[in-house]
């Protein structure tokens, strides 16, 4: 219950004074202004250099979280696309009339339960799929390019893929069905790897932030030793003293966290432009886009950046509180 009381009694309005410049704070309604003097002076807490370090940590954390979110979104879109589609491949070798075979297979597929749309791709469509790798060349016409039929399936009432696969093999020669399961598994592996990598980076950033705050708390306490002594003499307990320090670190963390998040948001805003400028040609740009999307974050991505900034502020506050209590215990 002490923790709940701490939250209730916390001078939250003082956070605004820590976040905003004094000129803006003076324009706020009286209830948002803290008139009580700071027992631990702000100037005695490591200032600008620490703010810059924490802002950089927040920036890196937001970039990582945003990138993982973007890859996850892109992968989900991929998985959704390919899970609602199967591809039928017709081998053109040893087939006298490939167009007729395409029609027969298409009609067969259209009759299957759970199939919503059958789209046979023309020879030109198939050739276009190879263009990014082979370029526009007349040699494509001479190659035995496999013909494809895209089949959309009803995801709420999916067909029995195995049954269709068996039926196709029995009725047609040189026809194979690809349900993209291998791709789905690979995409999921990539997403999971990216998420784990992101988590590792976030853990490192959090550890570095904690180390920096612990060190800053210790030096702040050393330079305010006399104030701590006086507070002890007038009967202040560990909770009161730690709160006097943590309010500075919460303000600092919130300010730096927001700065980092705003910088990361700006980076994500200009990322699509950067991808376009430094894309390395149409093919590379297309590949990058397929892998991580267009480089734009959606609204939830920006909300995630804000949450990361709040987490940074929270880490600063909690670390300083625990740091102060630990040092106070060592004084006793």
């Amino acid at each position, binding site marked *: 219950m002490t923790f709940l009381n701490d939250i209730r009694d916390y001078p939250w309005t003082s956070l605004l004074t820590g976040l905003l410049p004094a000129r803006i704070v003076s324009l706020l309604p009286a209830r948002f202004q803290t008139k009580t003097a700071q027992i631990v002076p702000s100037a005695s807490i490591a200032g600008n250099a620490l703010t810059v370090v924490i802002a950089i940590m927040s920036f890196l954390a937001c970039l990582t979280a945003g990138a993982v979110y973007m890859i996850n979104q892109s992968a989900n879109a991929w998985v959704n696309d390919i899970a609602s589609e199967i591809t039928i491949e017709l081998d053109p070798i040893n087939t006298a009339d490939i167009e007729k075979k395409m029609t027969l297979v298409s009609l067969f597929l259209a009759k299957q339960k759970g199939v919503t749309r059958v789209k046979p791709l023309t020879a030109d469509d198939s050739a276009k799929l190879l263009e990014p790798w082979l370029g526009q060349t007349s040699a494509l016409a001479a190659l035995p390019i496999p013909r494809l039929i895209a089949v959309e399936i009803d995801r709420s009432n999916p067909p029995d893929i195995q049954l269709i696969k068996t039926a196709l093999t029995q009725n047609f020669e040189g026809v194979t069905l690809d349900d993209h399961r291998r791709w789905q598994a690979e995409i999921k592996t990539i997403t999971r790897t990216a998420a784990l990598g992101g988590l590792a980076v976030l853990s490192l950033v959090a550890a570095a932030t904690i180390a920096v705050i612990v060190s800053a708390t210790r030096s702040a306490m050393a330079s305010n030793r006399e104030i701590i002594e006086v507070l002890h003499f007038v009967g202040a*307990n560990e909770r009161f003293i730690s709160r006097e320090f943590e309010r500075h670190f919460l303000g600092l963390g919130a300010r730096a966290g927001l700065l980092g998040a705003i910088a990361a948001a700006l980076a994500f805003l200009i990322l699509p432009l950067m991808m376009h400028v430094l894309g390395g040609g149409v093919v590379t740009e297309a590949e990058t886009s397929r892998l991580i999307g267009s480089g734009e974050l959606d609204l939830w991505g920006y909300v995630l950046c804000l949450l990361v900034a709040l987490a940074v502020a929270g880490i600063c506050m909690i670390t300083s509180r625990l740091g102060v209590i630990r040092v106070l215990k060592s004084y006793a």
Partner: protein
Amino acid sequence: MIRFDNVGLRYGSGPEILRDVTFHVLPGSFHFLTGPSGAGKTTLLRLLFMSLRPSRGLIFVFGENVTDLSASGRSALRRRIGIVFQDFRLLDHLTTWENVALPLRVMGKRESDYKEDVTDLLRWVGLGDRINAYLEILSGGEKQRVATARAVNGRPELLVADEPTGNVDPAIGNRLLRLFVELNRLGTSVIIATHDYALMEQLEAPRLVLYDGHLQMR
């Protein structure tokens, strides 16, 4: 209220500064603690205020054995004690008013509940025109009065003052003594460490005399 039983104190492996100190302070009593410079008056007060641990013996403050008291337990007891330090121990970046209000702020009281009381107290100790002044512009005597006002603010159960009239002129000294006596009448026990005989002669009160590390009651 306060009990010292055979208390001894030495720093490290040095000689004992206090030896077999035994005394008892009853609720509502008034004592002077005196002795020559270097006799250990300040050390004894620090023991009483729990900022030092005895090398031997037992100290009871408000019935609690302070030797095995937790940090939060010590804080709770200190809130019941007002102390005036010889070197004032004020916070330079706070105003006079904020320094005096500090114990009440630490107790978690609302500023609106004590605002007038603190101002009145500052007027009483002759600092009515220095309420919003920062300490750097105050004289030693004025700082002494700020420290005294901070100690008596919140009406503690025990007031401990280390040379409270050392830096003030006789008129202000008498005024501070009257403040202590008034507080004592309201039920606060008072211990004043001083070697100002003129001050002690103004009041009929038992004297705890420290000499060569030993304590005698006179």
